[in-house]
Every structure is written in structure tokens, then in C-alpha cells.
């Protein structure tokens, strides 16, 4: 026996493999979350629950104009106010930052320009929030107003005073065009070519916890920052860079996040400002944002205008696809370059698609920056694709379930855009929801107003590449053994409610045969824990889980060696369960786990071992191939039943059936919780949530409040029937894949498809609101949706041969520019 790399397994490793084959102690079961009781007793300390003696309160003075040059800042009145300890402006923090190395375009406080209403310009630290609030209002900024741009189609043309002096041109932050295979030829070969335009409105994470940060200058001058961040490692990098302090002297502790959903994945201006003020004042400083300010932090779903052109054969097989996306990026880069690529990345992993072209553009506009929200860049194209398939099924007279089932992307295959698909459980997912919903009997046959819709999706279990280029592990875990049988586990992961703490403890406990209560976790602390890149891109279970497995296995190996010697049993025969180490052939013959640890410590000295995980290399080598690859893809399918009021257009979602290909549940209860939570968030996006502005009123955010940003209440949430498809993926720990994001994705298209079944109209725009349904019902073409698509001005398309064409995953360098865009090019 050998591991994946061909290295022979040690007897101890073999013993563990045998043990796991015999059945799991914990994996797949539903033990109580390790942080469960702390959360239900109010003991969990969120960032704003922390405070330190002599603490100051920080408030940001934010721009009230959408786009302007800062002429002067007068802080004298604020400084004179009793109780104000320090006032800060951008000059003190001149180094820019940003989550992506290619988009270092943010300043902690604006220096030259403000780029949206809410962009911070100055900060105050005062003895309490009342004084800080008052002082913040006393700051006077003189602006020279500039002509703002709010519409991405206009941003494409507006080059006079672009928001930034970097990017592809003018206000175009990123323009990308990639062609895989012979797309034009594929349209020629098709029996049906369908082209339609879709729009997905922006929406936001709306975590219940508003962002908060506490910063403390230690007596020796070092800095400790507690913050509700999903990515302490990236905050660490940005913080030390902007503050010009060695990373070794900056410590970021991620507090448990009161919801994140992607909204706490960037390093934020308020975090850096708060830390700077703590350094300046030599007093602890806290900032806690108001709800309105959280809307200005945003980094949520990009509003995206899409054009989808697909060729189909009569049997529903896609011959080729040309997909275009125009993303409204807001004022800064954030994850936007990645988001842009993601709108074009995952169309290929669900159904066979031999030829594929993607053009994407992200523009800057004078609104809060967009970024990664649950599903990052993929819900928009997924909506377009799944509604498009529904259309094609109707045109071709094929059941929407069959057009999908008959053309699934095969497992263990390479897609046109060079993604490696491993395990693929979409077929069973579709079959489950079709059966449970009575689809075959009921679809197309419900009375007018009632309808069923089906849609599917896929998502990555962690990105194959890190955010900044490096070859180091994506996740590390240290396991330290205590003579009493306790195990301390250290990992940089961040608990954001998804249950990562529990997954970490369960992976270690499973390997060591101990109980969760015997494990102490130390997480999300850049000072004491090995790096885990963060709670984003659904990477934690797979990557941290693999690292935890490796660390625990290494600890187990030492314990097994020592215990085997004492028990005079070959260590391959040792089993670890119920806090004991024993001979599988004579279970009575064994030791307590604590005793075995003592023997191991005697033999090896103090035991603290590490494990780490680096994703496998990806087959795509072309420029841009870094977005999309993942060690494993999850799959989901949903059927949704709606009741549409034909007179008002109001849509009630009555029931949702959802199936998710999880590979293997680590904790089944948490998996179902993630499915239900994803469905809930998708439902909000599908029918009511909108992040909108008033371009004709200076660009103010239309509704920055919990009341007017419509998050579904108990009344809107229908019953959900969840099915898990378990087919372990070789790349996942115990076979596990992601669940945090995938199950959100099919909800929006399934609702739109269900509305079509109910009242026979297409709403090609998310959210599907009553006014749109009503407009579609009274329109000639029974459709509501975008009718125009701007010229994305693609001049430079990269042509990549598919595997089928004999390609090797690379693109010609420099990429060949075709004589005119869209023409077939043979190479």
C-alpha cells in the first residue's frame, strides 16, 4: 500500500486506514458543535463584546459625495472637542492596500479622491462613542466634485476622469476574453442556437453582526488586533504593510464572526485606522460600525449584465457557449479580478460543453465596492445558464430534468477550460429532487399560478491557488498532546458560523479515537496558529480537514509506536477509539489514550506535530487558469414550487427540495444547516434582496438599513427537504467536499424557472419581484429582462486548445489577436 504520491505507508498509517475502513467513530454523525453551548449561553465573545481598560472609541468621517477630489480637511473643531484624543487623516497612512496583489487601490483613509458616498476620509478617537460621533460630525472636508459614474455601461465609455489610474483602460478595471475550442463552429453545427440577455442585481451579505475591531498597543510596542474577519492572514499582511511594522510584531486574532458570507474577507480600512489610532494614542481603540456603515463596506454580489449564447443539438447536448458578463465593480478592486474570472469559470463543470468562450469586463463605478458573496461570481452566470437550459428544454421539447441528466459532465474528466472534475454526483442529486417533488407527474401540469422549477449548480471546494502567489501550504494544523490525554489543536481557521471549529475537532478526534471534549482549539490567531488562508471559497473543510488529518495521523503514529511496544502488538493492528488504544484482534488488550500519550512522550519527548495541505497542481496553464480549479467540486440540484398571484405578480415560494453532493459529511447536522442556510440566502436573492442606489440623487445608497434591505423573515422561508449524496471524493478529508456555498446557487434560477411554469413568463432578472412578473405578463414577448448589451470592446481574445483538440492547457504566448472579434481562428 502507498499513499497518493506513491510513498509506501508505514504500519501505523496502514493501521489508521484499516481503522477508518471499519467505520467512523464520529465522521458523518452529528455531535453537538464544539462552540454550541458557548453560543447559546451568551459566552461567545464577538469583537464588539471585547473591551479593554482605557479604551477609546473610533468613528470614521465618511464622504457624503460620490466622487470628488479632496481639497482640504479641517479637523480643528473635532480636535478641540473635549474628550477627543486623536484625529487621523489619510496622510498618516499613505501606503495602499487591497486583498489582491493586482488591486492595491485602497487607502485606509482617502487621500486624493473619494469614490463613493461612505468612503472614509478622517477618523477620530475619543473617550466614548457619543463624543466620537459628535467629533466625527465636526470634521469639515472641502471637495472639488467630479462627474460620477454609476452605470457600468457608461463606465465602459467614460475615460475622462477614471476612478483609478490603473486597470485595463479608463474605468475598465479588468477585461478578459478566453476562447476554448471552436465556438463559432459549434454554433454552425447546432440545431438550435439560443441567445438571451440576463441581469443579476447586486445584493449584500447582511451578517447580523456589524463589523468591529479592537486594537491594542502592547507595552513593548507590538500590536494586537481583534477583529471579526474571515481572513486574519490577509489582514495580517495588509496591516503590517500599511503600518510599516514587521509582521512578526503584528498579531491578528479573528474573533468568531457573527456571520460573514464573504463580507468580512477583505482587509478593511476601519481595521487599519483603529490599529493606527491605538499606536498613536497608546491606548486600546475600538471601532464598531453602524448598520449603515456595513452597507458601505459591502464587497457583496456584483450587479452583472450577461449575454448567453448557446448552441444545442436536438437531443439537448450543448455544442458550444459564448458567455459575456459585465460586472459593476463599485469604487475599488477588492476581489473583483477574481470575481470577473469566476463569472466565466464554472459553466463547464456541470454539463458537457466541448467549446466555450468567455468575455468578461469589470468596471469601476462610484458605489461601495463589490466583492465575494457566497458563491463568488458564479451565481450570476449560473442563473443565466440554468434559465437558458430551461428555455432550450422547452424549445426542444425535452423535460428540463432530462436535458440536464442526459448530458452531465463526466466524472474524472477535463473540461474545455481545463478544469479537472473528480467525483461528480449531480445525476443522483437531480434524481433525488425530481423524485421527491413529484416532478415527473406534476411539472407543467399544475393549475395556472402554480409552478415547479428545476436548476442545478456546482461549486469549488477551495480555490486551487492562493490569493497571492506562493507555493506554501494553504492550511496548517498543529496537534499538541498533553499527558492527561488532552489534545490542543492549533489552526489559523476562522469560525464564521459554518462550523469549522467542529470540523477541525472532529477530524482530529476521529483519527485519535478521542472525544470532542478532550480537544482544546486555538484558532484564528496569527501569533499562535499556523496559517490557514481563511474562511472563503469553501476551502476550510477540505484544506484544513486534510491538514488536520495529517497532523493527527503524525501524532497517532508516535502514540502507536510507543503503545505497540508496550502492548507488544504490531502497530498496524492498533485501533484508537473510545479514548483507548488497543489491539484490534483482542480489544481488551489496550491502554487508555492518556497512558499511551505518556508512553509516547517518554519515548519521543514532548509531542507537538504539524500537518499541512497544498492543493494538487492544476492542468490549466493559460493566463487566467488560476480561477476555477479546485481539488473537488460539489454539486447541487433544487426543485422549487411557487405560487404566483397573476393579478399582482407576487410570488410565494411554497416548497424547496434540494440535494447536495457532499462527498462525505463530516458532521451531517452542520452540512444540512449549511444547505438550509444557503437555500435561505438564495431565496432572499431570488425574490427580494437588492443593493440599489439613486444615481439621479447624487448616488446615495437607496436603502442602507435592515428594514428596507429585505432579508426574508420566518414568513418567507418555506419548508425545505434536503438530501445528501455521499460519494467520497479522494481529495477530501474522509472524502468530504464543500457545502457552504454550492446549495445557494440553484435557488435563483429554480425560482425563475418555476415562475415560468406557473404563469408562462420569463423573468430574466434577479430578483424576481412582483412588478417584473406583472410587466412580463402584460408584455408582448411574455418576458421581462434586459434587451440591450453594450460592446465590451474585446480586442484581445486568448485562444486555448481544448484537450479534445489536442491542447496541453497552455495558451500561445503572446496570445494571437484575431483580425476581428468573434471570427473562427484555426491555429
Amino acid at each position: 500500500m502507498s499513499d497518493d504520491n506513491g510513498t509506501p505507508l508505514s504500519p501505523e498509517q496502514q493501521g489508521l486506514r484499516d481503522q477508518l475502513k471499519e467505520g467512523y467513530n464520529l465522521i458523518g454523525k452529528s455531535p453537538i458543535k464544539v462552540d454550541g453551548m458557548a453560543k447559546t449561553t451568551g459566552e461567545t465573545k464577538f469583537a464588539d463584546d471585547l473591551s479593554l481598560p482605557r479604551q477609546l472609541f473610533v468613528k470614521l468621517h465618511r464622504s457624503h459625495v460620490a466622487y470628488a477630489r479632496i481639497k482640504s480637511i479641517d479637523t480643528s473643531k473635532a480636535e478641540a472637542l473635549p474628550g477627543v484624543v486623536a484625529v487621523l487623516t489619510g496622510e498618516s497612512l499613505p501606503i495602499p492596500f487591497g486583498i489582491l496583489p493586482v488591486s492595491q487601490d485602497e487607502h485606509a483613509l482617502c487621500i486624493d479622491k473619494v469614490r463613493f458616498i461612505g468612503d472614509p476620509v478622517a477618523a477620530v478617537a475619543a473617550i466614548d462613542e457619543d463624543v466620537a460621533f459628535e467629533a466625527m460630525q465636526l470634521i469639515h472636508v472641502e471637495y472639488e466634485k467630479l462627474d460620477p459614474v454609476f452605470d457600468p455601461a457608461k463606465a465602459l465609455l467614460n475615460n475622462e476622469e477614471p476612478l483609478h489610474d490603473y486597470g485595463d483602460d479608463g474605468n475598465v478595471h479588468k477585461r478578459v476574453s478566453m476562447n476554448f475550442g471552436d465556438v463559432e463552429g459549434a454554433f454552425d453545427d447546432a440545431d438550435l442556437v439560443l441567445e438571451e440577455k440576463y441581469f443579476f442585481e447586486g445584493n449584500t451579505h447582511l451578517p447580523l453582526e456589524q463589523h468591529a475591531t479592537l486594537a491594542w498597543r502592547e507595552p513593548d510596542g507590538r500590536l494586537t488586533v481583534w477583529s471579526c474577519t474571515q481572513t486574519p492572514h490577509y489582514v495580517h499582511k495588509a496591516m503590517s504593510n500599511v503600518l510599516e511594522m514587521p509582521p512578526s510584531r503584528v498579531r491578528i486574532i479573528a474573533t468568531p464572526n457573527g456571520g460573514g458570507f464573504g463580507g468580512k474577507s477583505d482587509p478593511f480600512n476601519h481595521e487599519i485606522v483603529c490599529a493606527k489610532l491605538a499606536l498613536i494614542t497608546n491606548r486600546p481603540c475600538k471601532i464598531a460600525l453602524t448598520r449603515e456603515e456595513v452597507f458601505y463596506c459591502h464587497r457583496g454580489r456584483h450587479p452583472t449584465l450577461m449575454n448567453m449564447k448557446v448552441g444545442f443539438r436536438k437531443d439537448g447536448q450543448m455544442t458550444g457557449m459564448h458567455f459575456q458578463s459585465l460586472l459593476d465593480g463599485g469604487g475599488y478592486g477588492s476581489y473583483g479580478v477574481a470575481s470577473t474570472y469566476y463569472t466565466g469559470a464554472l459553466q463547464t463543470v456541470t454539463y458537457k460543453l466541448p467549446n466555450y468562450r468567455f468575455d468578461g469586463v469589470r468596471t469601476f463605478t462610484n458605489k461601495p465596492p463589490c466583492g465575494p458573496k457566497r458563491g463568488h461570481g458564479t451565481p450570476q452566470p449560473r442563473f443565466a445558464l440554468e434559465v437558458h437550459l430551461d428555455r432550450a428544454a422547452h424549445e426542444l421539447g425535452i423535460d428540463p430534468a432530462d436535458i440536464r441528466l442526459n448530458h452531465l459532465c463526466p466524472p474524472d474528466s477535463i473540461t474545455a477550460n481545463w478544469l479537472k472534475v473528480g467525483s461528480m454526483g449531480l445525476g443522483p442529486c437531480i434524481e433525488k429532487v425530481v423524485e421527491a417533488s413529484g416532478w415527473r407527474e406534476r411539472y407543467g401540469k399544475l393549475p395556472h399560478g402554480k409552478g415547479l422549477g428545476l436548476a442545478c449548480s456546482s461549486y469549488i471546494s477551495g480555490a486551487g491557488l492562493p490569493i497571492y502567489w506562493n507555493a506554501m501550504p494553504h492550511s496548517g494544523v498543529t496537534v499538541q498532546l498533553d499527558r492527561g490525554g488532552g489534545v490542543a489543536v492549533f489552526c489559523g481557521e476562522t469560525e464564521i458560523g459554518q462550523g469549522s471549529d467542529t470540523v477541525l475537532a472532529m477530524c482530529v478526534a476521529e483519527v485519535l479515537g478521542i472525544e470532542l471534549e478532550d480537544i482544546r482549539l486555538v484558532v484564528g490567531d496569527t501569533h499562535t496558529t499556523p496559517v490557514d488562508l481563511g474562511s472563503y471559497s469553501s476551502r476550510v473543510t477540505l484544506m484544513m480537514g486534510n491538514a488536520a488529518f495529517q497532523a493527527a495521523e503524525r501524532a497517532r503514529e508516535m502514540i502507536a509506536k510507543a503503545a505497540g511496544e508496550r502492548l507488544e502488538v504490531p502497530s498496524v493492528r492498533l485501533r484508537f477509539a473510545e479514548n483507548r488504544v488497543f489491539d484490534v484482534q483482542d480489544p481488551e488488550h489496550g491502554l487508555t489514550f492518556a497512558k499511551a500519550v505518556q508512553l509516547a512522550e517518554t519515548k519521543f519527548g514532548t509531542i507537538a506535530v504539524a500537518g499541512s495541505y497544498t492543493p494538487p497542481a492544476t492542468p490549466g496553464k493559460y493566463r487566467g487558469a488560476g480561477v476555477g480549479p479546485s481539488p473537488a467540486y460539489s454539486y447541487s440540484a433544487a426543485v422549487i414550487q411557487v405560487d404566483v398571484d397573476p393579478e399582482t405578480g407576487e410570488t410565494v415560494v411554497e416548497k424547496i427540495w434540494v440535494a447536495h453532493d457532499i462527498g462525505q459529511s463530516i458532521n451531517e447536522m452542520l452540512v444540512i444547516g449549511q444547505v438550509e442556510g444557503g437555500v435561505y440566502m438564495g431565496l432572499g436573492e431570488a425574490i427580494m434582496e437588492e443593493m440599489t442606489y439613486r444615481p439621479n440623487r447624487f448616488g446615495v445608497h437607496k436603502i442602507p438599513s435592515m428594514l428596507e434591505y429585505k432579508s426574508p423573515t420566518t414568513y418567507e422561508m418555506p419548508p425545505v427537504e434536503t438530501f445528501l449524496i455521499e460519494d467520497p471524493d479522494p481529495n477530501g478529508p474522509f472524502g468530504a467536499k464543500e457545502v457552504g456555498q454550492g446549495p445557494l446557487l440553484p435557488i435563483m434560477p429554480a425560482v425563475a424557472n418555476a415562475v415560468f411554469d406557473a404563469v408562462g413568463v420569463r423573468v430574466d432578472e434577479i430578483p424576481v419581484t412582483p412588478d417584473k412578473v406583472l410587466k412580463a405578463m402584460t408584455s408582448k414577448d411574455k418576458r421581462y429582462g434586459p434587451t440591450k448589451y453594450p460592446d465590451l470592446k474585446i480586442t484581445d481574445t486568448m485562444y486555448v486548445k481544448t484537450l479534445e483538440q489536442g491542447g496541453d492547457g497552455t495558451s500561445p504566448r503572446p496570445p494571437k489577436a484575431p483580425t476581428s472579434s468573434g471570427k473562427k481562428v484555426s491555429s
Partner: protein
Amino acid sequence: MNPTTEAGGPPPPPTSLAKTHMVLRVNGEDHEVAFRPHKTLLEVLREDMDLTGTKHGCELGECGTCTVLMDGEPKLSCLVLGLESDGVDIETVEGMAGPEGGHPLQHTFAELGAAQCGYCTPGFLLTAKAVLEDDKDPSRETLVEELSGNLCRCTGYLKIYEAIELAAQRMREKGSSDEGGSHV
């Protein structure tokens, strides 16, 4: 209404920084507290009494996160003054557990995954506790209605219903065994 400032000028500051001194009955105990009179109960609990179990999500009555019980009724602590809270029995999440352990709801919320990020959880727990005082076996319809003032972004509410139903069942079983059992 009531324009008290020049257009464009900042509104006037709080004029009084002097603290008021009173006794609040929180979680069954009387506490002497000093706080500024314009502070809400939410602020008094969190900032002047270190009871940070009560969370906040909007401070405008639009999310239900800051819910506490006042004389057994769920109320929004962000919209009640500290000054208006004397003579009332205030219960926060910290007061739910007794010496014998957590309230059944606290256990079932943890066991069934009704608390994901846990931030809305204190508000839900207290609302749910009040529901179970009135109705020992609430229907789903009752739960949908009574919990409609608490927003949760993580769970989609389904596991919250299940946790309340399980706690209700355990409380009923305990209630009937207490009644049936002989007291020695």
C-alpha cells in the same frame, strides 16, 4: 419635523454627560447602575453591566437581535431607555441557565445546530422562551408568527423551529414526570 439645526450643520451634541443612578433588576438580581440618561437598555446592559450576551444588529428595531425579556415579554432593548427599565424584571441570555445547567432551549439550540454564527441566538432564545411560557406545544404556524421579529441570516430558521420543538417536548416530558413523580 422639528428642524433644530441649520441645513447642513451637524446636529447638536448630547448636552448632558452626567450619569443617573438607579437599581435594575436583571436576571433575578438587583444591580446598582450608573449610566447616562440617554442610554438605551441595550447600551446599559452591554457597556455599564458587562452583559455582552445581548447583541445588536441595527439599533433601530429592525432586526430583533437585541431582544430581552421584560417581565417575561420579549422587547427590543435598543428601543427601551435604561431609565424606563426600573421596576421591571429583565432577563438576558446570561440569566437563562441555572445551577443545574442550561435552559432546555440552550441545549437544543446547540445540539440541533440552531445556532450557527450564534449572533442572533440570544434574541431567538429569549423570544422562544416567552413563546413556551404561553404555549407548551407550539405549532409551526405559531413559531413562524412569534419568531417573525427575529432575523437570522445563517439557518433559514428551520433548525431554530426544530430546536424549540425539541425543547418544548423535553419540557413537557419533564413537567409530566415531575407531576407524576413522588416527592420524597
